[in-house]
């Protein structure tokens, strides 16, 4: 299978302000490279401040990388080309209740990316929204509701609908499953897996719940203080962790290590 998204030597550093001899650069993310294939999931784990979320922001274009290149299907994604980026790489955030604009109906919410990125007529847009809502397990009539009328799990589904409506190739789940209740979380995982099979999506899963990571992902990347300390197939890494950061993360989750 061909690589879908390839990241080469991507890094991010901030410069602190000050006099010229006091200037410091802080490396939030040291140069890192990885690639993902379609139908696959890459999980990224690490402690706070390890640069997980920065990586997600760099990929969707919410922040400018200090260097490095991103290739999608072999073509370079330019940093300034937001239109291309947001069509192919979408993100779902942790807290679904604050990422949806409370003053807009679901129809308006989902219409916005379509208006900005596609040439569809109004009728086609509404039809597409109806189909997308049904795909994530909601009803088409839900489009006239406001976000506060939905429960937490349903809001997360709307975030997912907003992510898949442009038919992207990569979806980044930035702790998207953390704030959900366990039974709804299982529903959401099932839904995400179904969509992956149907649409050939690649996921980048950022999570600290190793149970989900183990179940959901094919490959694993462990970040610590901005650099990759361990990578490989999820099962290999979890069953046989080499670096002490990985060991610590697995230990604290109480995940029993047993070999098959």
């Amino acid at each position, binding site marked *: 299978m061909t690589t879908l998204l390839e990241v080469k030597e991507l890094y991010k550093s901030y410069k602190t302000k000050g006099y010229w001899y006091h200037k410091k650069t802080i490396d939030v993310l040291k140069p890192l490279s990885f690639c993902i294939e379609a139908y696959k999931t890459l999980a990224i784990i690490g402690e706070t401040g390890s640069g997980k979320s920065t990586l997600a922001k760099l990929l969707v274009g919410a922040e400018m990388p200090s260097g490095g290149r991103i290739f999608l299907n072999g073509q370079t994604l330019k940093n300034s080309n937001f239109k291309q980026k947001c069509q192919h790489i979408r993100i779902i955030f942790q807290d679904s209740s604050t990422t949806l604009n409370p003053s807009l109906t679901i129809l308006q919410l989902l219409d916005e990316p379509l208006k900005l990125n596609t040439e569809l007529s109004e009728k086609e847009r509404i039809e597409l929204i109806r189909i997308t809502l049904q795909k994530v397990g909601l009803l088409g009539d839900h489009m006239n509701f406001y976000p506060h009328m939905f429960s937490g*799990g349903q809001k997360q589904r709307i975030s997912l609908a907003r992510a898949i409506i442009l038919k992207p190739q990569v979806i980044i789940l930035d702790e998207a499953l953390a704030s959900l*209740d366990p039974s709804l979380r*299982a529903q959401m*995982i099932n839904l995400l897996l179904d969509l992956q099979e149907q649409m050939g999506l690649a996921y980048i899963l950022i999570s600290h*719940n190793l149970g989900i990571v183990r179940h*959901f992902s094919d490959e694993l990347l462990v970040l610590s203080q901005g650099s990759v300390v361990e990578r490989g197939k999820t099962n290999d890494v979890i069953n046989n962790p080499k670096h002490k950061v990985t060991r610590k993360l697995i230990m604290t989750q109480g995940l029993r290590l047993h070999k098959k």
Partner: protein
Amino acid sequence: MNLLDIRNLTIELKTTNQNILAVDRVSLSMKEGEVRGLVGESGSGKSLIAQAIIGVLDDKWHVHADRFHWRGVDLLRLSFEERKALLSKDIAMIFQEPMACLDPTTTIGEQLSEAISSKQLSGFFWQKQKQRTSAIIKLLHKVGIKKHTECIKSYPHQLTEALCQRVMIAIALARRPILLIADEPTAAMESVNQGQIFRLLSSLNQLKNMSILLISHDLENITHWANTITVMYSGQFVEAGTTEQISKKPLHPYTKALVDSSPKSNLQLPPKSRLTTLPGSIPILQHLPIGCRLGPRCPRAQQACVKAPNVTSFHGHKVSCHFPMKEIR
């Protein structure tokens, strides 16, 4: 004697249109030195029970119970002042977001010194201040903060979330409580910090023989730390038993679904397979189903489920279901 003995607790919200039963006949008992987990998804009324125990619910809520005993004293019969005097000594509570619960305008040291009652100090007034400071430092050491001088001087925003939670626990410990109610103490915290806080709580439980009521939405996390677990769903009692019973042989379909839905507990599950889960979502308080509230989502629901089931007990393993999963065992 049970430390806390609650039988058929009902918490009702009176509105103009209808009376909403937010908590419907829940029983809960705690022995001395026990860590009890109270598990439920959002809207299950677990925080309401905690608030009812320490009596901070306002007048909108009506609390009834067949029995509401704290070490043999019926709390519902006491006046507000008597109750406050009794409970402030014996019960302490820590909350979900420690950053938000601490006063942002005063230093940690001042907030801690407020919590230390003057009855614990002796001697003349010039000696008291010294004792107070040493008591603060002792408390901070107890919760595992070694750099006490920096911590006392700093404001809540200067500390990390986990440190703030430790300070909250220190404040809770100041009056040497018998029962500590921890309402989701590690929500929105990282796994490394989560482990630290839980380890601190369990060491306090073992060293000081302090009982802990651990409230959480995450069953898989609770099973590592609690001795006994009570499961609730949407304001109704579901199941109670030892951790072993709940996680190995759940009798209620809801508990079974909770245990099965976590990918961590069943490691033999092949990756990327579908997880078993209940259909539908948690009902909102305005539209609660009658009878067993799990009814519309339950795979084993039958006609009898329109009536709320009674609690049956199998060797101390209590379950509230018409059709418990006993025969499957």
